[in-house]
């Protein structure tokens, strides 16, 4: 069974707007990662946040982690059409088995 659950399942926004995706999980973790997948391609790592971190930034990406609520959010600022993709969170307890959620399909309209 998948531990991570992304929300919303699909999101459609205009170019320049911000996109926020959420991820909830069930058991304790020691890190959470976000990945991006373009249609028909493999997944690409975006950002990793450890369980003792609350927020992390990378370029236009901002990730938060709330271990008390077992949730994370990914914010993409000033979105571009090229950001159109599926986004997945993946949780891991000891860097061994990574469990992915069902993903959020983001469409950025020009």
């Amino acid at each position, binding site marked *: 069974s998948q531990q991570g659950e992304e929300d919303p399942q699909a999101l459609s926004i205009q170019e320049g707007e911000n996109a926020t995706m959420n991820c909830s999980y069930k058991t304790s973790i020691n890190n959470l990662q976000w990945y991006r997948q373009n249609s028909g391609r*493999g997944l690409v790592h975006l950002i990793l946040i450890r369980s003792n971190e609350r927020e992390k930034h990378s370029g236009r990406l901002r990730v938060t982690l709330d271990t008390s609520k077992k949730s994370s959010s990914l914010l993409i600022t000033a979105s571009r059409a090229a950001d159109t993709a599926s986004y997945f969170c993946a949780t891991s307890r000891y860097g061994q*088995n990574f469990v992915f959620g069902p*993903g959020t399909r983001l469409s950025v309209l020009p």
Partner: protein
Amino acid sequence: GAGVSQTPSNKVTEKGKYVELRCDPISGHTALYWYRQSLGQGPEFLIYFQGTGAADDSGLPNDRFFAVRPEGSVSTLKIQRTERGDSAVYLCASRRGSGRGRIGELFFGEGSRLTVL
């Protein structure tokens, strides 16, 4: 090579046939993962190797599925007596480092799309 390489990129087979999917990880990456992804779904964990041994094979759906990594590098996912429900994209990923406490990103290949007719 520079990235994770998977072959074949596409495989069409008939129900009941045997299939092998190959994964060539990034050189030096000790951990190797197989996932299966159906259309519109997230990757589903199948098996994880640490070196030559399967550290966790709890995701293999049944005994028709088997994977090996004999020299700790290339891995082969083997599916016997394929069924239509096996149709999916099979993704391989590798990761540097091993063991508890070592956290690293997964590097994915482009996947092998399996279609069972």
